[in-house]
């Protein structure tokens, strides 16, 4: 038993972090939201260059990468492209009922799953997401491609992404309350603020092992469990982060908005929390369990 990342996996996380820290991801996300995909596609190409595109069969490595992608709020159909093994360099998919819309089908090759079969797809009408960087499209099915695969791999990566979003929100909040002064002292000195952020850290630290274990076992009960815990921790982080930032956190101009709105969007995509909890409970109480 060794339930920890190895040196190569930690190195992978560092490489992704270094790349994302050197890129201006907030500006890239804002451009993506405005329909200018060039900086985002450039960033995705750089991620491919350091090997991220070849990880589809390495679930632990995927969770490592997606935690970093979440932490920096990288836009684009990354779960779809990196985790599902779809036959396109930049791909997206609609997979009802969990995922009714295809993300960024205006820039990625769209597919749709109908009755467990993957089909080519034509994008239809665009839907407005709560997250301006997420351009959602209805799709109509074209030619069948083959059996649909790796839905749980997508859910796992989204869980890791949510975990990273939560960590990004927490890190930004801790930095903010340390420099923001009221009543003559940093607001981070107030216990009310400290306790909000401590609760977030506990939730994230205890969600991470569920995500890693889901990557190790690949069991549906673990995948959905990881998603439930990660999405709840990210949600707690979002509420606490907004509260810690005060009014400036409630502006689109502040980069916090990129993370806050993505957490809200991802809680609905790839299945609701209720769907995933029910899946866990069904697995625990099924006669074979």
């Amino acid at each position: 038993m060794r339930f920890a990342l190895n040196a190569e996996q930690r190195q992978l996380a560092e490489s992704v972090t270094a790349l994302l820290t050197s890129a201006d991801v907030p500006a890239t996300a804002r451009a993506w939201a405005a329909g200018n995909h060039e900086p985002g596609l450039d960033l995705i190409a750089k991620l491919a260059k350091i090997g991220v595109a070849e990880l589809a069969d390495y679930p632990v490595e995927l969770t490592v990468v997606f935690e970093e992608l979440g932490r920096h709020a990288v836009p684009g159909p990354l779960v779809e492209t990196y985790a599902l093994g779809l036959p396109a360099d930049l791909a997206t998919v609609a997979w009802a009922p969990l995922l009714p819309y295809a993300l960024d089908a205006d820039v990625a090759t769209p597919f749709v799953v109908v009755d467990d079969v993957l089909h080519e797809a034509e994008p239809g009408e665009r839907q407005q997401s709560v997250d301006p960087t997420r351009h959602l499209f209805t799709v109509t099915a074209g030619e069948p491609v083959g059996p649909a695969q790796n839905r749980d791999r997508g859910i796992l990566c989204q869980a890791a992404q949510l975990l990273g979003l939560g960590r990004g929100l927490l890190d930004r909040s801790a930095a903010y309350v340390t420099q923001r002064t009221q009543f003559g002292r940093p607001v981070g000195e107030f216990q009310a603020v400290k306790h909000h952020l401590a609760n977030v850290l506990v939730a994230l630290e205890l969600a991470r092992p569920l995500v890693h274990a889901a990557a190790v076992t690949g069991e549906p009960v673990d995948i959905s469990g990881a998603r439930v815990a990660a999405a709840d921790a990210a949600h707690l982080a979002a509420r606490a982060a907004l509260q810690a930032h005060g009014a400036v956190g409630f502006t689109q101009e502040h980069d916090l908005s990129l993370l806050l709105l993505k957490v809200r969007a991802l809680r609905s995509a790839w299945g609701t929390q209720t769907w995933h909890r029910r899946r866990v409970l069904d697995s625990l109480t099924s006669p074979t369990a």
Partner: protein
Amino acid sequence: MDLDLDAATLEFRDEVRDWLAEHVPTTPLPPMDSDEGFPLHREWEHTLAEARLSTVTWPREFGGRDASLLQWVVFEDEYYAAGAPARVSANGIALLGSTLFAFGTDEQRARLLPRMARADDIWAQAWSEPEAGSDLAAVRSRAVRTDGGWLLSGQKTWSSRASHADRAFGLFRSDPEAQRHHGLTYVMFDLRADGVTVRPIRQLDGVTGFAEIFLDEVFVPDEDVIGAPGEGWRVAMTTASNERGLTLRSPGRFVAAAERLVDLWRERPSTEAADRVVDAWLGARAYRLYTLATISRLADGGTLGAESSVNKLFWSELDVALHETALDLLGTDGELAGPWQSGYLFSLAGPIYAGTNEIQRNVVAERLLGLPRGSR
């Protein structure tokens, strides 16, 4: 990254499982902090010790079997799954034992640990005082120098196990001039010594699990001081870190309770409580995995520091939520006395003992998130 148990650990697990199946009392013992229950729990500890199962991670010379931390987790999994009795020696083993390993002398270890492993001595903790709860450094009980030792005077309270235990350990102010964390000394004393009066306190759950201890010039020899006189705070913080951290509340305890909760849900399904059943089960699994991650980190040379506060916050809140969910599943029978009821009442103490959760959140915020300490 893997969760696989090695052959030796699997073999150990099977041995423990078989042993427990053969030895765990078929009818539950009376509460350990009751007059009838305490001796029976001591006897159970003797039985465990004979099989070298009372302190599995300790060296053999002290009654253990040099088991790894992973094997300890597995032992605890099996122990709680088997519904074995509550551990009346837990305070000594988890708190004082680890302190003696870190700060005790060879003489102290040889004299005290084997007796602790066999529950010949059952230990109570004597930290809190009427004016020193969360603010532990405010202790006023004194240790005054005398020939060959110290005279202890003052009052301790909320002392777990003190109603029935043999001996106790705690912090005493040995230098009245020193401030706060300085001038404190870590002392062990006999609860039946001259000058000691123990007054049991009936807890919320009806049992006398803790007590007040009054000390009036109680003599303690030098060999019952742990660490240097005046260095007690540093010694005690090691104990506190263990209490909150790995060893006091093993994952097995919560995993077993969560499995019983799922069983209860099968008997009495309730749509309203379904989400909370899932969250309790996931919480127990998360805590177990988090413990395995910690063990892996320690194996890589890492240390257990402020992370122990994360542990304590998580398991204490999980325990309350899990038991509340069970009582809600029981519907109108949730009011009735029973194992879930007593487990619930006990769980309510979790966010208070071993350092209140408010103190733990301060520790997490300041030491893990780097928020400014400021004035309290």
